[in-house]
Each structure stands twice: as C-alpha cells, then as structure tokens.
C-alpha cells in the first residue's frame, strides 16, 4: 500500500510522525537560554511575565540590555506550557541575542508571525501556544525602560475598549481567536462581548473576522470557498 501524503498540520518535514517542524522539535527538546529554577546566571535589567496557569501558558523573560548600544545582550526565560510554547520562547530568545544582539526598537516590532516563521510554522491548532512570547518580551522591555529611567519610552499596551460595560477589549477578542474561537459566534460565546453592551456587536463581528483571517488565513479561505 502506498503511503498517503499527510497534511502538513500533523507531520514533520521528514515525514516522521511528529506533530511539529524540525526546528520546533530542536527547540523543544534542546531549549536554548532557559533559566534554571528562576535564577538567571546574568545580571538582568528587565523582566516580564504574562499568561496564567489556568489557561495553560505562562512565560517569563529576563533581559540584559546594553544601555549604550540599546542592544539586547542576554535573554533568559521560563515557560509553563506545551511543546509549541516552549519552542517559541526558546527560538525568540535566540532571535534576540544572535548577531551581537537585537536593537530594542526592532525587538518591540517582533510579532507572533515572525516567531512562527522562524519556527518553520506550527500546526494551525497550535498557533495560539506561541502568542505569549512577544507579549512577555514587550513587558520585559517596558520593565527595562522603567528600571533605567527611560519612562518616556514605555510602550502602552494598545488596547481598545469594545464592550464598555463588561470591559472587554480588542485584545480579549484577539485572545479568543488565538485560543480557538473560529467564528463570530464562538468569539461572543468565549468573551461574552455584547452581553453588557449589545450595541458593540457589529464591531465585535468585524474584529472577529479580522483576527480569524489574520491568524488562520488558509482556513478562512476554505470557509469562503464553501460559500
């Protein structure tokens, strides 16, 4: 019997029954720069932590930034989460310190997509596991700004209030999509957006579609194709 070509979602590049790409596998099994027992071996000047144990992902990032050159010299991290979460933090730490260290301004521009690209992709149902890396990084850089009296450089979390009654922001809608909501209805179900202020529902729908097509472009095409 000829072996079937399996969907890239569930098979590694070499056809072995591994769920992830070779790069993900390498970073998961041989993680780089992780901090043992929460004690970095270098003198850091910025630290950030995001996520929650109940959601299944939590990340902490420590940075040593050289103030003269504004480059990231050292990066350490800890992650509670699945293989994708561990691999994406590990690869992010490598991206930050390679080639003499990344400039802070450039590091602030890193998106989930950049991390995904560097990982050689993730199965679509696993993309949500890589969302915390860039957020923890931003938190750590902000902490560095505060610690080094550069308060004017602190980047505000750009979130926009959608449901004013229940205090649901566009970030919450983005998170719902990244955590598996695949339609406007599922976003509403997860975030409860609109339950407090029903007038925001058209905006919720617009944002839901925006984030779904942003993070799951292929699946979105398939749905459109069916229509």
């Amino acid at each position, binding site marked *: 019997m000829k072996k079937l070509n399996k969907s890239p979602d569930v098979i590694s590049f070499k056809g072995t029954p591994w*769920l992830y790409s070779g790069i993900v596998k390498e970073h998961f*099994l041989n993680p780089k720069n992780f901090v043992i027992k929460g004690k970095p071996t270098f003198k850091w000047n910025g630290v950030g932590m995001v996520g929650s144990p*109940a959601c*299944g992902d939590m990340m902490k990032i420590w940075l040593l930034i050289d103030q003269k050159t504004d480059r990231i010299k050292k990066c350490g991290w800890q*992650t*509670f989460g699945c293989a994708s979460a561990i691999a994406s933090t590990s690869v992010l730490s490598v991206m930050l310190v390679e080639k003499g260290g990344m400039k802070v301004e450039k590091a602030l521009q890193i998106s989930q997509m950049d991390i995904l690209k560097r990982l050689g992709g993730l199965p679509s*149902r*696993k993309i949500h596991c890589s969302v915390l890396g860039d957020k923890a990084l931003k938190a750590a850089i902000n902490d560095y700004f505060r610690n080094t009296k550069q308060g004017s450089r602190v980047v505000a979390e750009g979130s926009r209030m959608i449901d004013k009654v229940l205090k649901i922001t566009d970030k919450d809608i983005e998170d719902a999509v990244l955590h598996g909501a695949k339609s406007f209805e599922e976003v509403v179900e997860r975030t409860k957006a609109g339950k407090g202020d029903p007038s925001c529902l058209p905006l919720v729908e617009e944002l839901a579609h925006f984030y779904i097509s942003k993070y799951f472009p292929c699946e979105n095409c398939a749905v459109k194709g069916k229509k």
Partner: protein
Amino acid sequence: MEYLNIKPYKTRIYLDNAATTPIDPKVLKEMEPFLKNDFGNPGGMYSYGYEAREAIDHARTIIAKYLNCNAGEIIFTGSGTESDNLAIIGTAKANQKYGKHIITTKIEHPAVLETCQALEKAGFDVTYLSVDKNGLIDLKELEKAIKPETILVSIMYANNEIGTIEPIAEAGKIIAKKRNKETGLPYFHTDACQAAGSLSLDVNALGVDLLTLNGSKIYGPKGVGALYLRKNTKIEPLIYGGHQEFGIRAGTENVAGIVGFATALDLAQKSIKTEVPRIKKLRDKLLSGIQKSIKKIIVNGHPTQRLPNNIHISIFDIEGEALVLYLDQMNICTGTGSACSSKMLEASHVLRAISLPHEIIHGSLRLTLGKNTTEKEIEYTIATLAKIVAHLRAMSPINLKYTR
C-alpha cells in the same frame, strides 16, 4: 536531550493500553484462516458459507458464555462506538412513543456522550449525572433522575481516563425497582469496553439490558465490537441493507474480526484470576515509585474501585503535552488529558467533571499497563519520568499550591 543524561529504552514501552492493545498472537492465529482460504460469505448456501457461519455462531457462543446470556442476544458490530450508538439511538427510536428522557453521566466516553447530545438536538431530553471527586456516580441522584418517561439509562462500567469502576449492579437494582412492568422501560445500558479485561461481564448479575464490548481493548482486532441485547428489548437498526445479525445490523459479517474478538475475550476472561493480581502488583509498584520520586502530584480516580492497570495522575507546574512528547523521545508511550493535546483545545471532560481546576488538568498523565508490561520497563519509567519532570519543572515559572 543529552543534559537529561538518559538513553531511550531499547524497545518501546507501551503504557497506553486503555487506548488500544496489541493483538495477541493466539488471536491472530485463529483469525488467519478467515483472512486467507476461508473467505466465504456466511450467507452462502455452500461449504464456504456454512463454515463461515459456523465460525460466527461459535464466536457468539463463546461470548454468550462470559455474559451469561443466550448466543442469540449478541449482535456483532463494527466497533465499541457503533455498539454504543446502536444501543442509544436504536432504543431511543424504538421507544420514543413511551417517553423521550435519557439518563447518562458526565464522564462517559464520547461514543455515548456525543450520541446523547445528538439526540438532544433531535428533541430528546438528557440528564447528565454528576460524579464525586473520585469519579463515582451518586446512586441517590440516579434514583431521583428516573422519571416515568425515562426510556434509557446509560452508565459506563469503568472509566477510560481515570479508571474508576461504577457501581453497575447497584444501579441495575435501582433501575429494576423503578421499571415499568408493561413496557420494561427504562432499559439499562453499560459501556464495558474498558472492563472486559478485568471484570465480570455477567449481564444478569449486573442487571443490564444492553452491554457494549469491543475487540481492540482486549488484545483482539480493531474494527469489531458487540452489543448484548436482552431478549425482547425493542430496538431499531442504524444500518439497513440485509438480514445479518438478526436484522439489527446489516452488512456482510467481518468473519475474521468476529473470530478474533471472541478468541480475545475468551483469553482475557479466562486469565482474569492470574492476570489481574499480576498487573495490579506492577501498577502499584509504578505508582508508589512515582510518588516516591516526584513531589507535588495528585492521583486521580477512585483509590480502590479502579481498573487494575490504570494510573492517572496530575503533576503540578508542568504541561501534559510537553511531558508526553518527552516521554515518547525515551520510547515511553503514554496519554494526557491536557487541552493542548486535543484537537478541540479543550481539557478532558472527565477531569473537569471530577472538579479538577484547569491548571491541574494541564499536568495530567495517564499510564495504563498491559499484559506485556515488564518489571524492567516499570523501573525505567519511574526513573525517566522523574528526570523529565524535574527538567520541565526547572523550566517552569509557576509554583502551584493545591490540595484535594
């Protein structure tokens, strides 16, 4: 993974026997003729056909012996899932004029749970019984839930995740007490797929009218199941197209599968007295080894009323999918109920039903031993698991506090 200082085991250590089991060589040997020369359709009126028919009838007799029922009460199907579907949808369709209420539990296998959910969409009313922190149903809650319009109660014999054994015989008595003498309703169904290797399947002692079994959990072939159907139980088929299986399950019989399944059940039930104590001893050794070498874990499921081969634990501060993938690198095959391992990204419904918080569910691990599991494998697993957990914990920024 050099820093972990462990080498993968020389062969695969299979500790996921609740998922499926390897086929027993004796089973394969019995099946072989029917995959080769004895290919006849059991419906044929010639020697090839008669021989195949005889093999199926013999298989039915073997199974009936262990169920303490008549051979004519065994319906062969394509899987345990199909048997569950047939039991639930089949009796619901045939008896809906008497009522549209069904009772089941929150911790059933999806084959039962999703079938009940489908019936809810079709206008049936379903009560999902809750369970306590050990996974046991409350018999008083069951008694209260039975209404005049209840047509079916479906409770699993033993849970596939946490291994808890439900009080089926006691539930059977309660249901019998409340049964309508004229219609014989509600019927009592149990999914016994996980129980067949270690528990008695006597349908009269259990007081069940329908019982699901399959081949793939007892060292038999995949793709074959059976449904015990007590005489005079009203049911409608799900699959039409032939007179096979007393008109309840159409389709040319899977002769080799049926023969293999019956052989497997025979071997499993015959060896309960020797195999259950052996596997229990190994299981207890594995569990106490884990408890000694890994701190901050909890054991899920009932402490005594549980399957002899099942260990289910939650390990704090780490995530199950990462753990299972690391174990696989060391040639140890295990399972987890963590949301990250599932396609739906949803944590196990069983672990939620026993009121485990999400952060604890994430670190869950199921180890189910089999008849090929050896002492050496257990020792390697204890040592390796401890090292991997220590590694993942060193990498983890959290420190959970939780007591049950």
